[in-house]
């Protein structure tokens, strides 16, 4: 086999293909697959003051925002399992979300105006997540107050779970929910990220 391993013809045939060629082909696939309705989940990643964020959208709307500490590969595997295997890195569908997040982190935006796909959550959790945007920019509520807001004042713990499993952090503002004593509680992006978002909104 040594003559094959050292064969110049074969070496050249298997020579590296330049990244520009692959990027061009990928862009073409994004465009054509999208045109034929074959991209069930499009995603991209963006840089932000709270680290790299993964953004994913179905044709209905934004379905997932994920912090780096959630492990983006695992998040994508989870989307493949729960939503569809037809997942493609196709940033175009996320243009509006990326722009609004940019404006938010730049203190030029206080309300997100994006179509959301909340289908990763069900029942009470989804109900809580639907109501979270009612907590205005720069304000905070306790878990208990949110439980009252959704008409189930005894479900304080369940509200905590709904916040912890929010598939759309930052955009659906679970960071505005604190413990009754004013301490932070938990956060999917880590407490530093929660603090950073609260300080960003307080400074505006």
């Amino acid at each position: 086999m040594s003559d094959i391993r050292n064969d110049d013809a074969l070496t050249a045939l298997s020579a590296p293909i330049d990244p520009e060629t692959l990027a061009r082909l990928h862009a073409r696939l994004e465009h054509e697959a999208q045109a034929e309705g074959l991209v069930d989940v499009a995603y991209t990643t963006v840089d932000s003051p709270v680290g790299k964020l993964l953004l994913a959208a179905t044709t209905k709307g934004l379905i997932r925002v994920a912090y780096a500490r959630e492990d983006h590969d695992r998040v994508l595997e989870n989307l493949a399992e729960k939503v569809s295997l037809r997942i493609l890195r196709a940033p175009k569908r996320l243009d509006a979300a990326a722009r609004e997040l940019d404006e938010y982190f730049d203190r030029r935006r206080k309300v997100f105006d994006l179509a959301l796909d909340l289908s990763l959550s069900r029942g009470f959790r989804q109900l809580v997540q639907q109501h979270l945007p009612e907590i205005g920019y720069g304000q905070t509520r306790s878990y208990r107050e949110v439980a009252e807001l959704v008409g189930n004042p005894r479900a304080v713990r369940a509200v905590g779970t709904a916040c912890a499993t929010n598939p759309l952090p930052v955009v659906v503002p679970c960071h505005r929910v604190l413990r009754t004593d004013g301490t932070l509680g938990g956060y999917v992006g880590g407490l530093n990220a929660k603090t950073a978002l609260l300080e960003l909104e307080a400074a505006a």
Partner: protein
Amino acid sequence: MKQPFESVVAQHSVTVLRVCRALLGVHDADDAWSETFLAAIRAYPDLPETANVEAWLVTIARHKAIDVQRAAKRDPLPVQTLPEEPTSIGIPGTDDTDLWEFVGRLPDKQRQAITFRYLAGMSHAEIAAILGGTVDAARRAAADGLKTLRKHYPGANTKGAVP
């Protein structure tokens, strides 16, 4: 567990492009590559979990290459009528598109056998299953193709001594 389709593209993009280039030449390869992954994303949810994803993609690529070739024949390429003659424009291999031209001129069976064997890493038995015919015939086609390629591809004389 099946990977998100983007991982399939990331892992097999290069192999599929090489297969398409070997079957069609550099210029038509892009079309076949696109058609391959478009067909693949459509069918991917139904692919059995145990399937060999690369072999599956190579099979699709081969069919798409035939489609592209048929379409091209209806509108013949000038290159197919060019006489074969020694190049006067430098050393083939400094731009590897030259080599793909040589591969393109191999007889069909040899070209496909070489592509599947050395670029897609398939066994002679797998190649025989795709091309039809015996395992020995597949092995012979790959060996003959490689021999022809070495003869026509002068890279060995220009790239310096390889031990």
